[in-house]
Each structure stands twice: as structure tokens, then as C-alpha cells.
């Protein structure tokens, strides 16, 4: 039995209320690839059913939160089927989800394999020039590692998006190589520029817009990671895989979408 399967067996779903208009499905509270993958799997499966009273489904690390419209829930026949209990509804969703998975085990496994063979990786250019990566020298000194080595380590890893939050389009990604992990600044900067790429502990992220922020900034991407245009919006979602690649200052200037 692989270690991955062990984790799946151990991780049991919990269902809880989050106030009077949201419910939470949760697994073991760990920042782990297998866990967020299972969260996304449940999210995608729930969205297929298109229940009109579910108005949000928000994945984050080990939880999937569904926000629902109270009035719409009671109007729906699902409410009657579940004795007007949102928790009963959530539990029946889980039962169906597990059943579907069991029945389609083979299909699931094949799909997974295909995915694994050609995972989609979003590649994001980053300019690690000292004028943009304003905490590079700090990180280099504190962690006793050369700047070239920092860049290499940051670009080596394929990161998984665990959640979005803080700002529209701000993706929390991990995990960062232990050699370049560094705690966020004790007090946040008043303004971090849009596109700035930072590290906070084992996570890395990109500031989608100018904002106050405490992450250690090691570079900047010329790409807009969030665009308020309704047909574009956020380019990253929980469950996405991304990899950074280094570009020089001239390439940064050429590609800069923030001009």
C-alpha cells in the first residue's frame, strides 16, 4: 500500500456548520498535497450537481466551505428530502460522493493516472533583480545561501495552490524548499508593489495589486495575476500547479503588464 493511500484512509470527512448560511467539509488539518487534491475533487463533484441554493464553494487547505441561500434551500425539494436540515443534506452529499467514487474507482484511477502523466503546470516568469527582489539580500544573509541558489531553489519546485485570499487573486502556494523558508516581516510594509513575489514560511505568493504586506519579497512577475475584467479575473485557483522561471530585467520590462 502506498503512503498516499494510507493518508486517504485515515482522512475522514467532518461536516460542520459555519453559522446559519454556510457549511464546512473538512479533512485532517494539514497543508498537504493529497488533502487539497481531495478537497478540489469534492468541490468539482458538488459543482456538477448545480444545486441552486449553493452560492459559493470555497476550498482552502483542508476545508471546503459552501455558502448557501437560506430561502432557496427551503424552496428546494432537497430540503424536504433531508428533513429541512442542511447538515443532513451535507452528509447525504458526502455519502453520494463516496459511493460515486467507489463505483467509478477504476475510472477515477485511470483519470488520475492520465493527469499525473501530463499535469498542467502554469509557468510564471519572475525577475529576481535586486531592485525588485528587495528582501533577497536579507534572505541570503539570514539563511546563509547565495542569491543564485535562492533563485534556483525557488524555481526548482512545482508549487500547489492551497487557497486564495487576503486580496482578490492572492494565491497561497507551497511548499517552499526549507533552505529558503523565512518568516514574514515582524511589521508589514505599507506598500508592496503589484506582481511582487514573496515568501512567508513554507509558502510563496504573488501580490496581485499594490497593497500593504509582510511577505519577504524576492522578485517580481511582469504578468498580471489578477485582472478585474470580468472575462479574466484570477488566473490561479486552488489545486493549480505552478512553476516560476527566472527572467532578466530587460525581459521583465518587455513583458511588463502593469505599465
Amino acid at each position, binding site marked *: 500500500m502506498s503512503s498516499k493511500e494510507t493518508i486517504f484512509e485515515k482522512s475522514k470527512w467532518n461536516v460542520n*456548520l459555519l453559522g446559519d448560511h454556510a457549511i464546512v467539509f473538512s479533512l485532517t488539518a494539514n497543508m498537504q498535497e493529497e488533502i487539497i487534491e481531495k478537497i478540489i475533487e469534492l468541490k468539482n463533484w458538488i459543482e456538477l450537481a448545480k444545486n441552486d441554493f449553493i452560492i459559493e464553494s470555497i476550498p482552502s487547505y483542508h476545508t471546503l466551505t459552501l455558502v448557501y441561500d437560506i*430561502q432557496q434551500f427551503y424552496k428546494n425539494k432537497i430540503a424536504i428530502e433531508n428533513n429541512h436540515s442542511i447538515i443532513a443534506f451535507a452528509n447525504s452529499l458526502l455519502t453520494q460522493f463516496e459511493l460515486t467514487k467507489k463505483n467509478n474507482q477504476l475510472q477515477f484511477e485511470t483519470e488520475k493516472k492520465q493527469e499525473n502523466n501530463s499535469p498542467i503546470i502554469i509557468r510564471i516568469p519572475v525577475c529576481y533583480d535586486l531592485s525588485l527582489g528587495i528582501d533577497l539580500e536579507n534572505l541570503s544573509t539570514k539563511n546563509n545561501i547565495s542569491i543564485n541558489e535562492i533563485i534556483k531553489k525557488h524555481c526548482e519546485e512545482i508549487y500547489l495552490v492551497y487557497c486564495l485570499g487576503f486580496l*482578490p487573486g492572492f494565491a497561497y502556494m507551497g511548499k517552499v524548499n526549507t533552505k529558503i523558508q523565512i518568516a514574514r516581516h515582524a511589521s508589514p510594509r505599507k506598500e508592496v508593489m503589484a506582481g511582487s513575489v514573496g515568501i512567508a514560511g513554507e509558502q510563496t505568493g504573488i501580490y496581485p495589486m499594490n497593497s500593504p504586506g509582510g511577505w519577504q519579497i524576492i522578485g517580481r512577475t511582469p504578468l498580471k495575476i489578477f485582472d478585474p475584467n470580468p472575462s479574466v479575473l484570477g488566473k490561479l485557483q486552488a489545486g493549480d500547479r505552478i512553476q516560476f522561471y527566472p527572467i532578466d530585467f530587460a525581459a521583465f520590462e518587455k513583458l511588463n503588464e502593469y505599465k
Partner: protein
Amino acid sequence: MAIKVIKSGIADTIQDKGRYGYQHLGIQPNGFLDYQSAQLANFILHNTITEPVFEIHFPASTFCFTSNYTICISGANFVPLLNEKSIALHTPITVKENDVLQFLKPLQGRVAYIAIQGKIKNETWLDSHSYFAKRIQKNDIFEWGANNEKEFSNPTHTDLPNNSITNEIINGIINEIQSQVFSTDPIRFIPGPAWEDLTPSAKESLVSSKFQISLQSNRMGYPIKGPLLPLHKPNQYLSAAVTRGTLQLLPNGELMVLMADHQTIGGYANLGQIILVDLPRFAQLSNQASIHFMETNIDTAHKLYQQIEKKFIHRS
């Protein structure tokens, strides 16, 4: 046909019911702080109850009308003045070209709403006029198109058969909403994921002590002053989705209630959620008011919410 801001307030915005469906991208819902008062103002004007309104904090903006409108003010009483003469709340008021609307002083409540009869013409972002970063500023112009007679007798919103609502019914609803929004009853919450991490005495303290809203409150959240609430052990939480009304316990022991402009996820101890029906009342509390919290359950919360929403539907 426009309304012009001639003096900026400190935190005034345009709000409607907000936008849902984008929190997985980190986009906040925003929307009315006190949906009951905002809906009431629209209801009195025969608008769709979720029509955008001006949400006013004190010190408030001053407005000038460049054409005739019918408006209605609800929520907090900031003593509204039209051309320096006091006007009533919860009453349709006809305003004419060059009339000036201002607010004198905060008498009761924290958030006032100005509804305008008709439909707003300004652009939406993702189906909502609410936008967290956009305070209304001096010289901003907002346009409303008036409802014409035809629209009136043929309402598109089926919940509101406008012409059959009597004044008696409207006055009844005004009284019920007012007594709900400004009652001093305890604020009810449903325990959340970190509730069991509180020590037994901290749980007891939360439901038996007096709390007060701190000065630094805004549309993102209201910090709450009160006794320290210790956790069993210093706990680390993985960030998860939060909602409006989430009671967060910060590492320094301070309580924070998240409001309409909250971030989509939070990593602090999530003690519980204030129920939707009590959120407007909480939003309207002054800094001087004593707050009591009371635990409730989902069935009560849903029943109360539906009762309030039904008030906005005509009872024949």
C-alpha cells in the same frame, strides 16, 4: 437626472446585496452592513428590495440633486436635513433640482441608508454595485432612472405587488424592522470550529460578560473590547473560509467580528458566527453600547431569518 456628492464623508459607499460566487478567487462579497434597514428603505419606495443604496457613516457626505427624485432614508438617525430643514426617516421624500441633503449629528445607530426611487444607472462589477475599495468622493455623480407608471403597475419583482400594499402594512413593517434593528437583546451566534478550544471559563465569559465595540471598527470588521478569552493551548489554525459575522479570537486575546468587507479566508481562532438576523443590529451598535452574546442554534436562526424576509413580502 443625477445625484452629485458635494462634500465627502468618511466612509460612504454604494451598497447592494453584494456579490457571491467569487470567494474562491479571493473576491469578497461586500454588500449592505445592515440589510434590514437598506431593504426597508427600498421597500417603502416600491423598489426591488436589493436595489443599490447609499450607505452613510458619520461624518456623512453631502449630496446635491440635479433633478427631481423620491428618496427614503432609513437605518441610523443622523438627523437628515434637506435644504437645512429636518426631514423624516422611513418616509418617501420628494426632492427637487438643486436641493441639498446633509446629515447633522449621529442620534441613533451607526449606518444610515438613502434609497432612491427607480433604478441606478452606474456600472456594476461582477453583478454588484458594492465594491470594497470605492468610497464615494466629492464630485462623484450617480444616476438613477425613475420608474415610470407602467413599471409601477407591472412589477417585475413578483414578491412586491406594489399597488396593493396599504400604509398600515408599511407602517407595521417599519415598526417591526426598527424594533429588530435597535433592540438591546443579546447578539446571537452559532458556535464555530474553535469554540471547543476555549477553556470552559472562557466560554462562560463570552456569554455572560459585557463587550463594547472599539473605535477602529470599519466595514471589514468591528474589534470588540471585553474580558480575555483564553484557549486551552496556543493553537495554530490553517486558514479557512470565514463569513460576515464571524467571531475571531486574535492571538493578542482581542475579539474581532468580521463584517461585509471581510477577507475571504481567515487563520485565527473561529469561535462562531453571529446569525444573519442579528447582524444588522450588531452593525448598528454604538461604541458606548454594552453587548451581550448568546448561543443559539441553526433552527432558530433559519426560522428568524425567514420571518424577517417574509415581512418584505406583501401579506394580503
